Structure formats: C-alpha cells, structure tokens
C-alpha cells in the first residue's frame, strides 16, 4: 500500500511522528564508526540519522563522469541526476522513520515553502514555531531541535563539513545553526513564490526539439536549459538574482543548510520532499520522461543517464528510470 505524503501544516500526526522519528534516528547508533566511514578523529559510533549526512556529503564529492570535477557536476547535484538521487535519499529516510516509529503507514510530510514565500517570507512562519521545527539561531534555541548543553539527549550536530574546501567531513558536537533571511551575498531575503514554481513547471522548450528537452538539455549541468535546472535553482542566470527555488530555500535558511552536510537540519527533508512533489507534479503533467538517455557519451555523462546506477546502497537496480513512477511506494495529497 503506497503511503500518502501530506503538507506538514495540515497533518499534526505526521508532524509529531516526524519530530519523534528524527529524535529516535539521532539517538540510535548505526553499526558503523566514524573511522569506518573515513571521518578523522577518535572512532565514535555514527548515529543512523548521521549516515544521511555522510551520504549527502560524500555523494557531493563523487564526480560525473568518474574522474571529472565534482564541482561542475556530481552524483547528486548540478545535473539531471539531482531529482532522482534525492528521491532515493528521501525513500531511505522514510523507510528508517517507518522502522523506528514501528509505523509502516508513516509518510514523510512536506513543507510548501512557496506558500510562505507568497506571505512575504515571514521568519516566524508556522513551520518555524516551537510546535513545529523551531526558529533560527546559533544554536537554535526553541522547538524540538533546540540545543540544551546539559541534556545528553539534546539535538546535536556531530558531523560537519571540515572547511571551506568542502571536500572533507569532520566530527563536532554542537547545536543546530540557522540564520534566516540574511542579506545577499550572505543569504537571501525571500523564499520562492507560488508564481515562480508555476513558471518552472510551465517551462516549454523551443518547438521542433525532442519532448525530453523539457526536462534537461546539453550540457546537462548547472547552465543547461530545462525544468530540472530551474527547480534546482541555477537558472535563469541573472547577476541580480543568483539563487532560485531549491537553492534559494537552502540560502534563505542559512546556517547548517549551507554546506554539503545540509541534511543535518531536519528541515532539509521537508524542503526536499516539496522539491520531489513539484517534480512529481511535472511527471504527472508531461509524462514519465527523463534525459539524457544512454546515447549520451559515457565519457562525459556516465552516472546521470537514464539507466546508469544512482549513487546509493541499492546498486545497479536503482536508476533514474526506476524512480520515474514510484506510485507503488508513495503518492502526494496534492500536486502542483
């Protein structure tokens, strides 16, 4: 039975389950240590939640194609693989939450940030009140993810990006950081609006091309034309407006949502669940199509073509093609 993912603001049960489940995944040790995962310092057990932080950070260092520059294109970002990779990641978190909650019907909720963008991007929006995710701060000081130094069970960031080079991870022990709506270039003052989501969904390539040009086009990177690059937030390239949609939400929240270890903030999953919902709306509207196909040369595009394995524990069985129709696993209450 597929589960139904709902708006967190309309489903208090999903909200409470999410908060409780994240707490359980933060407390539970995985069978692996930092040393086994290649993180320097004394060997410490890695919490199950933090496996996701490591997975995201490592995938960002995995270049496409192999041997290429992960800053140009990596196995999870800056190319067409962005949407399939994060869909698999969310599926992994949802499975783990179902397991620790002992609730097979649990569905990851989403945060429709464009609704807050339409309200003027208030930093005290309902999602950031103590009953939901808490507000900003260094450390966050209210809500379920606040830092209380004297409480050993407090929400603690344990793995972070080691420095501005962004290529290595390190251990830490501190509270969560958020810094909403910093002025550019440090942050961004507004969240994306509903009209901007509609624009990305309505993007139509020039007539006479291939139907999949609507999704992504050569050179399948952070400059390529298409729905994916709009939703990821690299285009349109406008010096006055360098961030859009997905990227804009990371930059508006700031703090731990900035580095490659952004899954440290539980808002990451609610944000990406909304990104996935927008993609699902697009697939529903235009067909379950993807680009590039396997005629794209491996020497340049291996790792993001339709039948290439997604960088995940599922190995070769998970490909972009395998996640275009996930209706057997989950659906959304409302599609844009």
């Amino acid at each position, binding site marked *: 039975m597929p589960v139904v993912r709902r708006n967190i603001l309309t489903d208090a049960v999903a909200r409470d389950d999410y908060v409780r489940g994240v707490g359980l995944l933060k407390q539970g040790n995985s069978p692996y240590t930092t040393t086994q995962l290649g993180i320097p310092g004394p060997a410490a057990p890695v919490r199950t939640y933090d496996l996701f932080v490591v997975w995201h950070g490592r995938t960002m*260092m995995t270049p496409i194609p192999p041997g290429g520059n992960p800053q140009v294109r990596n196995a999870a970002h800056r190319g067409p693989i962005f949407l399939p990779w994060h869909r698999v990641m969310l*599926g992994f978190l949802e499975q783990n939450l179902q397991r620790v909650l002992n609730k097979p019907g649990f569905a990851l909720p989403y945060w429709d940030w464009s609704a807050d963008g339409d309200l003027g991007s208030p930093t005290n929006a309902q999602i950031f009140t103590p009953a939901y995710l808490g507000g900003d701060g260094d450390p966050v000081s209210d809500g379920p993810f606040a830092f209380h130094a004297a409480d050993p069970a407090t929400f603690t960031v344990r793995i972070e990006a080691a420095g*501005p080079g962004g290529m*290595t991870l390190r251990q830490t022990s501190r509270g969560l950081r958020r810094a909403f709506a910093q002025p550019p270039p440090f942050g961004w003052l507004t969240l994306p609006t509903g009209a901007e989501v509609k624009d990305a969904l309505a993007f139509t390539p020039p007539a006479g091309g291939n139907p999949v040009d609507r999704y992504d086009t050569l050179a399948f990177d*952070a400059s390529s034309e298409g729905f994916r690059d709009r939703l990821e937030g690299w285009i349109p390239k406008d010096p006055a407006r360098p961030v859009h949609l997905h*990227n804009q939400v990371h930059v508006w929240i700031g703090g731990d949502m900035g*580095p490659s270890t952004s899954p440290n903030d539980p808002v990451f999953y609610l944000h990406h669940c909304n990104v996935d919902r927008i993609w699902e709306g697009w697939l529903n509207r235009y067909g379950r199509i993807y680009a590039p196909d396997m005629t794209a040369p491996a020497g340049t595009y291996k790792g993001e073509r339709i039948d290439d394995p997604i960088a995940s524990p599922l190995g070769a069985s998970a490909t972009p093609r*395998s996640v275009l*129709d996930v209706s057997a696993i989950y659906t959304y209450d409302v599609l844009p």
Partner: protein
Amino acid sequence: MDPTSNPTIDPTKLKAAAEPGAFGGYLAALPHPPMGHDHGPMKSVRTAEYQGHRISITTTYEITVDGKPLMAGLDVDDSGMLSCHGLPAYQFVSAVDAVRVLIHNYPDYFGGGG
C-alpha cells in the same frame, strides 16, 4: 535494459537497503576521501565557438586569506557566475563575495581576523 520489463524500484529491496547495517556498509565501502586536506586549486575550462573560431578560457583562482592559501574550489561557468564546494547551493557574481561568505560560514577555520 528490456523496455518491456517493469523497471520500477522494488519496495522490498528499498526497505532492506535502508536498514542501517546495509546503508552504513555501503558508506564504509566508498573510497575514503583524502584526510585532513582539501584538493589544490582547480581549473575551470570554458569552451565556445564563434564565427568558426574555437574559444577556450582556463581560469584558476589563487586566493589567500591572511596570507595563507585558500583552496576554495571556486568554479566559474559560461555565464561568468561562480560556485564553490563549501557552500554548494550558492551562486556568486564576485569571487570576493564568495570568499567573504566562506569566511562568514566557516569562522573557526579562519580564526579571528586582524
């Protein structure tokens, strides 16, 4: 890939692979990144064609902060916009801005300024 077979991801396999033992095992088997240091300056190579001429522009940023080299991994794209590993959702118009924002986000890496 046989287009007639159902390619969709199998929920049972997803459940098994998401179990912390299997999931952590995948991460442990990934090639470990080099410890304690980041990569050196990387080159951005932009190529284009104009009126039958082939253009190639190679850019390397050599940055120091307080006299110490900073391997910021800055990359410039065809539009002239910059991105960096340390803040992967950002896009910058100016390399100076990019380094300012890196200092702002990684204060303990840089220590106190003069």
